[in-house]
């Protein structure tokens, strides 16, 4: 029998990148919050400047709960189901924001209006076949104030490309207008970033230094980046990376309104016969608890959000919480982010160190930033080339047809060239499709006997074309920057199997028959259940999702504060 705890105003499930931000406006408004986090606080000693620790064993990027709940994957009904070897979900106070690489982007205004803008410019036939893409119920301008808040509260380095309509080519000229400049300038320039900027400009494109949630100078009482080069899937030993662990969560704790329960493994969100949620059931150190709450914010990773809703059946929700319209798990999007182009240079690049987000980005071939007439796809990809290439990843790279894959000639090739190649990180605009969704695996269970999440991802035509187009542009860019060889390889048509940019599955929309949450992030069916996560996104932009997740989370929390009586009363 679960021990019933003292009621709180808000129970938040998961305290990572999303709820780690959402708790701050709630706590400042004086709401009492119980944060249920499956992981624990991490310490600087948990972080190591070690590729095996970070990138191979993922000892910062995973957590105990996640290892028991690794999703399964298939390309369609009747196809063989396989299970991944590494969990996509992080468990820790601060979650994924501890180990992400810090690329902190706003989505493009087009991302919010893909359907209507595509029809307007290219006609209805340009909507990709099989896609369920809809306009978001909000526009970029609705989110702008919250992007701004997050950039200042969390701390983001960068250069504005569109400051209230004033265009500056030192930043992303394609971005939506922003109210203010970034709170910090971009991360340090290097010979390598200079080389890439020069190459892009030679082509008449608009390369710029990318924005990062990393301190380029001391900010928020924390140190500036020391560029040691273990940012990606690693933690920051000087707290220069602005995870919620070091920024918004400590700020919320100062109000004394936030209580964090570490090692709290949430098993169900409980609802009453009227369809309102009443609290959260969880297991902590072997004991079962029920935390009553007037409102619940669900903020675990996309796969777990969907799974937890589907597992939380009740009389009011026989098919899972907030799933009476059968929309939970639909419109899932695995972000199409690929290294389709790699390049070999005739000299050492010295990219071993530096931050992963110490990069150069080209946005000319993303979004609707170019005319797509006759191209056979919509969207495109941002192209990012970054520092921080570790020795194993480097040695395991391509040999550009210049050496065999083993033996003395291979070794000799590595000696000369291991430090002379890089790949582009091409992040595509990615859309939802009928053949791509999440549900519960009928066979595979977690250690508690609950089914794990199953990913079904079928073939697409739009994204492979868009990403190949962008990859060929990347090859041009590399050549202009001095590369002597490039390889372009198309990506698999079914898309990413397991994505750490997995979004959708509880889409935001006005129509309950096509979405799970409303434009504020609250369930169409359970009025006091909010969802803060990439799972509410209806499209994936051509950039990293975290800042958009955080802006949405802040907005949902802000709405809860402002509408407290109608939502929780």
């Amino acid at each position, binding site marked *: 029998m679960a021990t019933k705890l003292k009621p709180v105003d808000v129970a938040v499930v998961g305290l990572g990148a999303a709820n780690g931000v959402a708790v701050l406006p709630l706590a400042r408004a004086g709401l009492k919050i119980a944060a249920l986090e499956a992981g624990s606080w991490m310490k600087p000693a948990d*972080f*190591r*400047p*070690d*590729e*095996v*620790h970070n990138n191979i064993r*993922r*000892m910062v990027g*995973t957590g*105990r709960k996640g*290892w028991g709940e*690794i999703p399964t994957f298939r390309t369609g009904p009747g196809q063989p189901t396989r*299970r*991944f*070897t590494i969990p996509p979900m992080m468990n820790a106070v601060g979650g994924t924001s501890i180990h992400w*690489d810090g690329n902190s982007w706003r989505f493009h205004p087009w991302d919010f209006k893909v359907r209507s803008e595509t029809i307007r410019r290219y006609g209805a036939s340009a909507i990709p076949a099989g896609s369920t893409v809809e306009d978001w119920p909000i526009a970029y301008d609705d989110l702008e104030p919250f992007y701004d808040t997050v950039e200042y509260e969390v701390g983001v380095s960068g250069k504005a490309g569109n400051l209230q309509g004033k265009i500056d080519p030192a930043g992303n000229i394609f971005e939506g207008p922003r109210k203010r400049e970034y709170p910090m300038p971009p991360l340090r320039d*290097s010979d*390598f970033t200079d*080389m890439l900027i020069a190459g892009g400009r030679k082509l008449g494109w608009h390369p710029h230094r990318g924005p990062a949630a990393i301190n380029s100078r001391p900010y928020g009482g924390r140190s500036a980046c020391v560029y040691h*080069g273990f940012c990606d899937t690693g933690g920051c*030993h000087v707290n220069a990376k602005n995870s919620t662990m070091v920024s918004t969560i400590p700020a919320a704790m100062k109000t004394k309104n936030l209580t964090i329960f570490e090692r709290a493994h949430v098993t169900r969100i409980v609802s009453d016969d009227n369809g309102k949620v009443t609290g959260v059931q969880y297991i902590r150190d072997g004991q079962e608890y029920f935390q009553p709450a007037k409102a619940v914010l669900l903020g675990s990773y996309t796969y777990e959000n969907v799974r937890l809703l589907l597992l939380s059946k009740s009389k009011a929700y026989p098919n899972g919480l907030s799933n009476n319209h059968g929309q939970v798990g639909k419109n899932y999007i695995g*972000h199409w*982010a*690929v*290294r389709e182009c*790699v390049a070999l240079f005739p000299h050492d*690049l*010295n990219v*071993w160190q530096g931050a992963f987000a110490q990069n150069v980005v080209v946005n000319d071939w993303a979004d609707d930033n170019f005319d797509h007439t006759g191209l056979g796809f919509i969207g495109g990809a941002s192209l990012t080339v970054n520092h921080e*290439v570790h*020795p*194993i990843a*480097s*040695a*395991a*790279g391509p040999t550009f*047809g210049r050496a*065999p*894959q*083993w033996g*003395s000639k291979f070794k*000799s090739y590595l*000696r000369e060239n*291991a*430090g002379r190649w890089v790949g582009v990180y091409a992040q595509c605009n990615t859309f939802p499709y009928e053949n791509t969704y999440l549900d519960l695996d009928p066979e*595979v269970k977690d250690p508690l006997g609950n089914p794990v999440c199953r990913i079904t991802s079928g073939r697409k035509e739009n994204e492979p074309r868009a990403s190949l187009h962008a990859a060929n542009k990347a*090859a041009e860019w590399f*050549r202009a920057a001095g590369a002597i*060889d490039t*390889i372009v*390889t198309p*990506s*698999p048509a079914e*898309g*990413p*199997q*397991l*994505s*750490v940019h997995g979004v959708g599955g509880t889409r935001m929309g006005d129509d309950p028959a096509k979405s799970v949450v409303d434009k504020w992030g609250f369930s169409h069916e359970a009025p006091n259940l909010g969802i803060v996560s990439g799972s509410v996104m209806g499209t994936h932009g051509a950039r990293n999702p975290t800042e958009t997740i955080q802006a949405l989370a802040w907005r949902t929390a802000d709405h809860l504060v402002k509408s407290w009586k109608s939502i929780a009363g």
Partner: protein
Amino acid sequence: MKQKRSREARGKRIAGVSITRRDMLAGATFTGAALAGGLIPATAIQAAPQAAAAATKPVTAFSPEQRRILEAFADRIIPTDENGPGAVESGAAEYIDRSFVDFLAAEKESFATGLANLDAFARTSQGAPFAQLSTEKRDAVLTAIDNDQAPNLKAFFARARRLTLEGMFCDPYWGGNKNFAGWDLIKYPGVRLAVTAEEQKMSKPAATLHKSAYASNGEDNHGH
């Protein structure tokens, strides 16, 4: 011209079994936003990685015979030659063996089957167990795999090659890259806790440091 070069290069790489979707930075892999792990049968039990301390225990996942096959293989991926110590001399087999004790335990059976299949193929194609063949004949076995003459060994080859590279270029803490031979080979500058603008210059890369992320006394090297 560019397209032609690309296709050619790609063809060679595929023939060389080099391209695996595990290889984080190689070719058209989903990466950054996708995970570099693999896929296993849906019902296999997955083990969480052990605490880093476990790596220092003298443990082995393989029998002496399996270990001999593994070493004979790793030796041909990166041989000891005029460019310095090879994978075996640098402890790559030690790294791989330790990995299968904990982190890769779920994959051990399929890897062991791969080792046995390699040995069986060596016997049928070259007349002796793999580890007993001359280096020339071992190379002939690997070349035959490259040339699609042993389709059941392709996935194993890619996996074992990848693990050999991990063992050659990992932090020495994990049992490989002994005396920093791997890092010296590729001029990896080593672990620093802070990197200056000067040390990021392309023309004058930082000096190579023989420094592990873990000090030899077992204390961490994060300096706080």
